[in-house]
């Protein structure tokens, strides 16, 4: 490395660390402008914020309340995983198998008689949580799980239910949960995106709307990665420089810093100019750090073996590495489109998909726990809804005349959580005898959101963003914190 710039980089590194660790510093005044604009702080601070600021809104900050969770991982079983075949055992369903059910509720398509689950359920752990053979490895972590068996949503269709689950509103463009969390907490590592969305093979249904930032600043939107790729360049845009090697680039950045420094001195150290200078150093570090974070092959063999083979294992292991490095929110989708949507061939279909992710999920929970990270990481597993306990009847143009699948079901389904301050080995709520409808301690998707924000230290009724004449919330005018599942 060349001479003079050495000192320069040292200085920059120190300042950067100060910035990252404390979350204050020269950026803080500038940050104030955005935060007042966005309602995070108000009143007297408003007057103090400078007018033309370009703050880094991703700097970490703490929640107003005492949160137990610092970060979130959302495992999304897109298409709608069947609850009665996985986490909500219904012996009565087997009993009624092939018979008319007392009250068949209208869903997207017509369904007929009861369809008993082809999968065996068994009690697990000290808690005795009942989980089916589909998730027998995840079940080994049963004593860490908090299973909500009384989820419900609004309609039995994919798009609105995806939007509701991810953004709290089924029709209009509203920010996703991850965007809200990033807006509220920033992220702890400026060298990596703060909100990552992984889906192997392509987009899920409704595509990037699922992680949109809507009226929040665009930097809070999720960064999508197709995890069928392993090349970091395909994962993060412009992360590699093909025009210059690291030393050449360093020389460029050193010259840039020098020129900018002089420019700045003539301009009385204006904060936004300062943060722009810093952003180049952050980007420089990001190049190496991102590549390293995504390179799961750096893990020892026993860890690789723990997670097992396949893309789900890989994206879960990468997630753990990213969480360790301070990423705030990761959403993992099962795959492109809506893989869990088994209107027919449910038995083989669900078996195949569960096999793809069960070992990885179990390993992920175990790994977080052994590293002492689980307590501060909220892991959530949901689909956009569940499936009917009744069999779907054949429809022209749909399920190929088969009668071995289930339709969408928003009346009742299961979500499970782990870590982040939720009860362990716990079951909350219940569906009816057959699993059609949540009946006991019902939890709406808005309630789930309110609870997630609560665990992160936010009051969902006060966590707002002012836009188009009113204060918007993730939960709109709904939502109730489910205190019963909070440890």
């Amino acid at each position, binding site marked *: 490395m060349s001479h003079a710039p050495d000192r320069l980089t040292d200085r920059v590194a120190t300042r950067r660390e100060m910035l990252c660790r404390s979350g204050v510093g020269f950026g803080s005044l500038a940050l104030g402008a955005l935060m007042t604009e966005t309602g995070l702080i108000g009143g007297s601070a408003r007057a103090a914020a400078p007018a033309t600021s370009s703050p880094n809104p*991703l700097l970490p900050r703490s929640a107003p309340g005492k949160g137990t969770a610092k970060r979130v991982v959302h495992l999304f079983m897109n298409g709608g995983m069947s609850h009665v075949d996985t986490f909500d055992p219904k012996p009565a369903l087997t009993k009624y198998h092939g018979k008319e059910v007392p009250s068949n509720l209208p869903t997207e398509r017509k369904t007929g008689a009861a369809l008993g689950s082809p999968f065996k359920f068994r009690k697990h752990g000290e808690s005795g949580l009942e989980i089916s053979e589909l998730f027998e490895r995840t079940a080994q972590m049963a004593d860490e799980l908090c299973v909500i068996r009384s989820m419900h949503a609004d309609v039995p269709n994919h798009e609105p239910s995806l939007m509701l689950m991810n953004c709290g509103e089924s029709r209009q463009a509203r920010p996703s949960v991850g965007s809200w969390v990033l807006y509220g907490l920033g992220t702890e590592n400026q060298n990596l995106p703060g909100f990552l969305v992984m889906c192997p093979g392509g987009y899920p249904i409704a595509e990037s709307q699922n992680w949109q930032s809507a009226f929040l600043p665009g930097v809070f939107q999720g960064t999508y990665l197709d995890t069928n790729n392993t090349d970091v360049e395909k994962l993060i845009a*412009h992360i590699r*420089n093909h*025009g210059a090697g690291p030393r050449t680039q360093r020389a460029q950045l050193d010259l840039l810093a020098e020129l900018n420094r002089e420019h700045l001195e003539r301009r009385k150290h204006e904060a*936004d100019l300062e943060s722009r200078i810093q952003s180049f150093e952050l*980007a420089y570090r990001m190049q190496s750090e991102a590549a390293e974070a995504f390179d799961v092959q750096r893990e020892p063999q026993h860890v690789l073996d723990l997670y097992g083979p396949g893309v789900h294992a890989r994206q879960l292991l990468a997630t753990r590495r990213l969480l360790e490095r301070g990423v705030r929110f990761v959403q993992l989708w099962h795959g492109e489109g809506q893989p869990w949507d088994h209107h027919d061939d449910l038995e083989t279909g669900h078996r195949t998909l569960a096999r793809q992710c069960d070992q990885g999920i179990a390993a992920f929970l175990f790994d977080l726990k052994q590293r002492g990270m689980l307590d501060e990481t909220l892991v959530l597993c949901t689909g956009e809804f569940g499936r009917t306990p009744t069999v779907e009847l054949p*429809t022209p143009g749909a399920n190929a005349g088969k009668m071995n699948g289930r339709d969408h079901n928003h009346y009742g389904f299961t979500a499970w959580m782990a870590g982040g301050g939720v009860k362990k080995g716990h079951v909350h709520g219940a569906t009816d005898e057959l699993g059609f409808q949540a009946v006991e301690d019902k939890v709406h998707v808005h309630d789930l959101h309110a609870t997630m924000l609560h665990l992160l230290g936010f009051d969902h009724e006060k966590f707002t963003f002012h836009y188009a004449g009113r204060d918007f919330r993730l939960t709109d005018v709904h939502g109730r914190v489910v205190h019963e599942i909070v440890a």
Partner: protein
Amino acid sequence: MTRFNAHGGAPPARLLLGLVVCSLATAGAAEPGGDARPSPEAVAFFETSVRPVLVESCQQCHGPEKQRADLRVDSREALLKGGSLGPAVVPGDPSESLLVLALSHAEDEDLKMPPTERLPDAQVEALTRWVEMGAPWGEAPSASDADAVENHWAFQPLADAPVPEVRDREWAKTSIDARILAKLEAEGLTPSPPVDRRSLLRRASIDLIGVPPTAAEIEAFERDESPDAFAKVVDRLLASPMYGERWGRHWLDVARYADTKGYVFQEERKYPYAFTYRDYVVDAFNNDKPFDRFVVEQIAADHLPDDGDPSKLAAMGFLTVGRRFLQDRNEIIDDRIDLVTRGLMGMTVACARCHDHKFDPIPTDDYYSLYGVFASSIEPAELPRLDNGGEESAEIREIEAQLAEARKNRDDYKAARRAEVVADLQARGSLYLRAAHDVNFDLRAQNVDERAKRDDLNPQRVRIAGRLWKTRLDAAAAENDPVLAPWRLFRDLPKDEFSGKAGEVLAKLDEREKAAAGSVHPLLLTTLRDASLSGMDDVAACYATLLAGVEERLDSAGDRRGEPLADAAWESLRVAIHGPEGLLTPKEADDRFLIDRAQREELRKLEQAVADVDKKAAGKIRRAMVMNDAPEPTEPRVFIRGNAGRPGKVVPRQFLQILSGPDRKPFEKGSGRLELAEAIVGQAAPLTARVIVNRVWRWHFGEGLVDSPSDFGVKSDPPSHPDLLDDLAAGFIADGWSIKGLHRRIMLSNVYQQASELREDCLEKDARNRWLWRFNRQRLDFEALRDSILAVAGSLDLAKGGPSVAFDGSSNPPRRTIYGFIDRQNMDGVYRSFDFAVPDSTNPKRFVTTVPQQALFLMNSPFVQSQARRLADDAAGAGDPVVAVYERVLGRRPDDRERSLAVAFLDAPAAEGEPEAPPLARLAQVLMLTNEFLYVD
């Protein structure tokens, strides 16, 4: 407290609620009678726990629609006044309040509300507690509140405040200067000295045309000592065609422009002709089209007299290039209402979709008045050509032929499916209606198939018949329809009193018929009279019998079934049911319900074929994305709580109440779009002018006089300089709504020409620079950044208009950024990280953030690197390459220290084994990354 605990076994949550409510009650009790303003806590309690219950469970019978027992529960006054049984609420005294009594469903009490079922405990408790608190009613504006709203600055005429006296008269050369300076002096601040000429030129160039000046332009300006040197610069820049590309793009933020529809599942998502709207906007700015005219064309160009120039039709893309929400009509209309009201008038009307606006004087009725305007407008299947008149090339004729064929295939398919349905409904309508009635007109009912099977009907058509009948039955017009009116009257009878009251209905029908012959269909009246009616089943049977009568007559007509029936009464019934506007005749808008899942897939393929030809054509043919009026305008109904399934009262299509003055009249011409547009630039001109003037100010200075450019409502911060805002707006109107005139006024002021230097003393007093003691230093936005890089590299392609081009990893044509393809759904990450306007809805302003992804793009993207290399190739031939690079990128020569740094950089030995761009290219890239290049002083 005791009272609530008396319910016993209350879970912790309930207890908590009791406590909260209890403390609220105390707060409320401090203001008995509720004449004083209720506390915010009390209001919050009312809004979350009381109002929703009243709306959801009571207002259906005691609201704007119906007033059973003469009672309404939609205002505090109405509850205090009560109904035929006396006051419903006695504030502070639940035991005397009939409302509480009725809700309690007490065993020994006859009055039980709601009659069907007791409300959940929590709701009953909340309402009881609310009465105890003195019945505080939300934001019910007191008289003084109403005044405050009426007197809100944004709704006032433009004030003509005298130009204020200032101490530093020398500096105050324009009225803008005087008004700014007066505030500065009052705040104990002083303006900044004029900026140096080089910076001024760079500021003006990037501001007006989006690229920096060349070194030669800077030199010429520095040499020009004439007093109007800068005025000449402004004129030159305003005359550049690049001006429209810069300022048109600002407007496209407001217009939420994109080249795609957003997520529409399998439907083709590109708008092949969106670019014609973009080009229209660019031209409008370049031609300084008067802004009022610009507004009218964007909303109602189709209504303007044909002056032989079809280009203005493209203006209507303003309405039509929005998100399509999976073709959900209500959401599409909501987006357009939001765009027009927030984008043009700073009014957040979309807030009034479900309830009256919480703060601003916008009743829900106003929302649906505008809803009616857009619901009465349609987008024609075939968009008009913009480029007619010239000789058509063989290629275009071929495309048009392909398009016509693809359309014909699609339309034929739809027509054939439709004909099948129509024929079946004509032949067996009696059975279909009866079946639809049996499943309660519920399209999702589980027993539709079963019911259909009984009469060997097609289940899909049972749903169609049900849908048609129900929609028309629920429409406002049904009240006076000779066929539907009786059904409605019978339907309103309570089930248990049906037999008793059926006679009254029949008598009422007789009376009607007597008063106006033909107001009830004679055959229907006779049939109903002769039947014994004990419920809706009997009524439906009467209708079915009549339909069967029509069918029989048609049947026996045999070959002559196309001709009118001989009997006039039967013929009129046939027309009412099966005529072109008949009750069981699907309208075009119903087409998508006429087909089943498999047919839908077939139709989708045919529609895709049309879209494919359109996409192919878009480069060669230009079409305007117009709206036209529907043949019959829609009479809008308020949707209760915004729920389209719960239509409420009818409202006229008309302009916003607060902006209309006392003699508001319903729109009369077709949809009313033209009248709406004229009102926006007419009655609402002061507000509309303030909003655009503030936007223009903001695009110049980076901050507006009003902080919230799209919200001028009661809750927005007032303008920093109200007198200046009004002065600018009035001058703007007087100047024929000329945007270019406004630019001149602003840019020739001393305020605009101040230095941007940060001054510690001023910073302390006014850190946000609200009082404009300096010019705000601004970061180049994404378009200015990308265009500037292309410009200094010498590769900027100045071609105008045409279909959008994709800028992505694989190709990055050097067109101006405004011509880039904007994918609303999956917007490119680079756009996002540079804070580009997200086209989900109209954009008030862009965020300004600094994140490392921006730096990554500048450091590593092949785009920036290739531009730097291109620049270096040019500069390498110059006598002094370092000087050449500096002049090209920064428009100046390097100083000695910069030169020696550059030379050292160029001379440093290459790093071994690393890819190596030419040193001069690396130097050029460094200069493109400097703050000097990325910011405007």
